[in-house]
């Protein structure tokens, strides 16, 4: 019976751990509903006034818009780059390609504060500081390795005979890529796109270094909101931030499940 006890303990442990991980994020929800003017837990009384403020404030709306543009662009760029890299490395697969792969994963391993300083130094002479292009580029560099990982995982299960079959039937490399390889690794591509989106959507460290006035993302505005005053609008923004992340996650899961299903049936 020890194993039964152990597995029960394990299951309880897993839930406790999960609760421990998500509670800090969920705290924002009640706080955002407080009727008070400062960050506090509501006591029996709820109000949507901070959401109202969030959605009527030009500053907050502009930050939403900017974060959206940057995250979507980053996701698109990183997905294309990461997918191409993954396919290239998969195709040449040799000892050297493994070295190249390790090198390409560096942005994930290097502490973000160090990347942030590097971007700051580099973006000054390039004139990219405090611009959409600068942020999108920096986020893309951080996010592309994630796409590389998820797409490589998909490629590892791809049957190389399918590629041979396609060529044998007369398809060029490009046609084979478009009609056989890409559809087979779709789940990995979707997952990579999602991770890239989320990374950019809540990125703060690099953003703090390389943006100032003209680009003011949502995490950046929240950061400032917390530091300068205790306006609960920040909590409302956090709730919306989480909601959009969850929605992006759900959409991607549905899409990759649908593409997996279309193969199985």
């Amino acid at each position, binding site marked *: 019976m020890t194993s039964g006890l152990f597995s029960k303990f394990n299951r309880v442990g897993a839930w406790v751990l999960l609760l421990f991980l998500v509670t800090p994020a969920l705290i924002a929800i009640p706080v955002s509903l407080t009727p008070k003017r400062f960050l506090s837990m509501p006591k029996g009384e709820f109000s949507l006034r901070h959401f109202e403020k969030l959605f009527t404030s030009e500053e907050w709306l502009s930050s939403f818009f900017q974060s959206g543009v940057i995250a979507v662009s980053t996701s698109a760029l990183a997905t294309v780059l990461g997918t191409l890299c993954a396919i290239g490395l998969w195709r040449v697969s040799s000892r050297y390609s493994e070295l190249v792969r390790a090198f390409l994963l560096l942005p994930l391993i290097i502490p973000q504060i160090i990347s942030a300083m590097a971007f700051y130094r580099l973006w000054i002479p390039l004139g990219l500081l405090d611009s959409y292009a600068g942020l999108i580029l920096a986020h893309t560099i951080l996010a592309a390795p994630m796409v590389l990982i998820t797409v490589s995982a998909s490629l590892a299960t791809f*049957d190389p*005979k399918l590629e041979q*079959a*396609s060529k*044998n039937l007369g398809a*060029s490399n490009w046609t084979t890529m478009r009609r056989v390889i890409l*559809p087979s690794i779709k789940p990995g591509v979707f997952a990579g796109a999602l991770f890239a989106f989320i990374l950019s959507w809540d990125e703060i460290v690099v953003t703090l270094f390389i943006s100032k006035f003209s680009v003011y993302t949502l995490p950046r505005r929240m950061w400032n909101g917390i530091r300068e005053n205790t306006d609960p609008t920040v909590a409302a923004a956090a709730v919306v931030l989480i909601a959009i992340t969850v929605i992006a996650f759900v959409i991607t899961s549905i899409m990759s499940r649908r593409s997996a299903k*279309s*193969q*199985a049936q």
Partner: protein
Amino acid sequence: MAEPNQTGSLQVRNVSKLFGTFKAVNDISLDIRKGEFLTLLGPSGSGKTTLLMMIAGFLDISEGDIALDEASIANVPAEKRNFGMVFQGYALFPHMTVRDNIGYALSVRKRPAAEITARVDEMLELVQLQEFADRKPAQLSGGQQQRVALARALCFAPPVLLLDEPLGALDKKLRVEVQEQLKDIHRRVGTTFIYVTHDQEEALSMSDRIVIMRDGAIEQVGTPKELYERPINQFTAGFLGKSNFIQHNGKTFALRPEKIDLRASASHPDARLSGTVRSVTYFGSMQRVIVDASDGTEIEVDIDVWRNSETLREGDAVDLLWTDDAAVELQMG
């Protein structure tokens, strides 16, 4: 059905394939005739797939040349060779329907949609899969997937069709059925078939000619009958069917088990050998008798149960008889 091809003879000239210093294919020369059903038969690791992959263009040739209708194709990439191929495990595109799989070769050649539809319908009929056109490969049985792979490879009327152990994944009963269908399709389309297998029964029943391979080289080439009746060495005789090997005057002879006559009474005047029965195994259509011959060898005899009703028992003394033409003299090796 498919319009008969004007082309389809293949010349393999002194072809070798080296993986590092290992010779997987060793100096193979072969003339494959247009429209013939040629089988590459050999044990696992004998270089069959490697040779087929060089013909298909997926592996470079280390030495020698391969030509289609006398024109070298050594430098033509796989996608330009126009050879059909049925892969081991089929390699059907999992995200496409049966119809899209079969029509793939025509669709990448940018043929008009109406032509593709018509041709795919024709192929679906050829392999008897009309009702399954809109299914995905995962919804088909192994035998049906095998037929889709065949239809896909034949759809663009290739001059040569390469098949790598296409029946390997099917169970024994289905395999015999699909063998018949495959032979029938070969007769109807007139394409040159190059068929790889390690199953000797499959090779015997389907091929016009068989190439027996061993360690990357050719042992013997011939029709199934030639190879069975006139094996040139022990390897061929033992690999294609069963054989006893008899030493006589310093020469080795191959003797098929069904070509030996077995008499229960001892000291028969024409007896070539005598011995005692070690075991008798009943197989329905025949029984296999293992005899310990007096010269110390072990001889296997297949006898027709229907004509020889007298029962043999272990320990019985027997005489072994055969005619001169039953024993085939072998070369060394």
